[in-house]
């Protein structure tokens, strides 16, 4: 079979080339037509902040000379942290007092302090739980806080023996101070 001047082999080759081009064309179309569909409900939320660290401070050296944090609670207004409530226990001799300062600092992912506050220095004697409400300045969003650090600094000896109880504290019958 002959078509004009074309030989049989040329026709077959042309047919193969045309077929290959069509197949490649379809493949090309399919390749560029890849569509990825994502629906919000079908995938898990992505992490922005997965963890927070709290540091509980403890200072002292013996059974009659130590102070330790028992509880850290952040006060928030919406997602803004305004203050912290630290509940801590101290055990000092009943005949001598020590100045104690409680501090709180909030740190971001890079270890930078973004907010902080201190309770002020107060003289304490004896033992008991103490609650310290500490204002944090400036106010920060809770989602930017990676680490909450407390510190209890036991300072020098104080002699304000009977004037050690803060106005916000009371003493129950067991001798434990309560907020």
């Amino acid at each position, binding site marked *: 079979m002959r078509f004009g001047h074309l030989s049989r082999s040329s026709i077959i080759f042309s047919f193969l080339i045309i077929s290959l081009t069509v197949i490649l064309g379809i493949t090309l179309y399919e390749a*560029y037509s890849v569509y990825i569909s*994502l629906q919000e409900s079908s995938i*898990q939320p992505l992490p922005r*902040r997965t*963890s927070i660290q709290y540091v509980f401070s403890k200072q002292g050296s013996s059974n009659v000379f130590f102070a330790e*944090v028992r509880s*850290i609670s*952040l006060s928030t207004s919406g997602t803004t942290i305004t203050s912290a409530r630290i509940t801590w226990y101290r055990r000092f001799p009943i005949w001598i007092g020590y100045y104690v300062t409680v501090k709180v600092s909030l740190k971001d992912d890079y270890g930078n302090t973004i907010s902080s506050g201190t309770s002020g220095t107060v003289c304490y004697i004896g*033992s008991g739980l103490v609650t310290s409400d500490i204002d944090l300045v400036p106010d920060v969003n809770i989602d930017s806080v990676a680490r909450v650090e407390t510190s209890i600094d036991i300072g020098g000896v104080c002699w304000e023996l009977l004037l050690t109880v803060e106005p916000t504290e009371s003493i129950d019958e067991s001798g434990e101070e309560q907020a």
Partner: protein
Amino acid sequence: MRTIILILVLLSIAVAYSATIIVTEISEIGGTDAVKVSKYNIRVISISIEVSGNVYNNRITSITVSVASSHPGYYNVQATVISGQCTDATSWTNIYLDSTPRSLTSSLSNQCRYTPPGATVEVRGVPA
């Protein structure tokens, strides 16, 4: 001429198939508002620890955390206590969290000594 066309077609196919999604970080998927992919923040409002006694050489026996999430859903929450060389951990599985803090309490098995300069508690939450 045919060969050149054929090569061009093959190159086009190669480019098409190599145009896969290249994502260096998975969070890029939700990087724009055009693609609504939720992101969550675990929020730990408070942590309390229970100790074995009001003595210097006491141990951390249990922990209570108040935790919330910016994105409502079920989460696995883990708390890890590190004090000195000691590490203790506890977890809560399939806990529903939303913006309202939820209190979770658990005893600790290792009961690490609570020694100066103190202990670090890390609370972690991931979708269940």
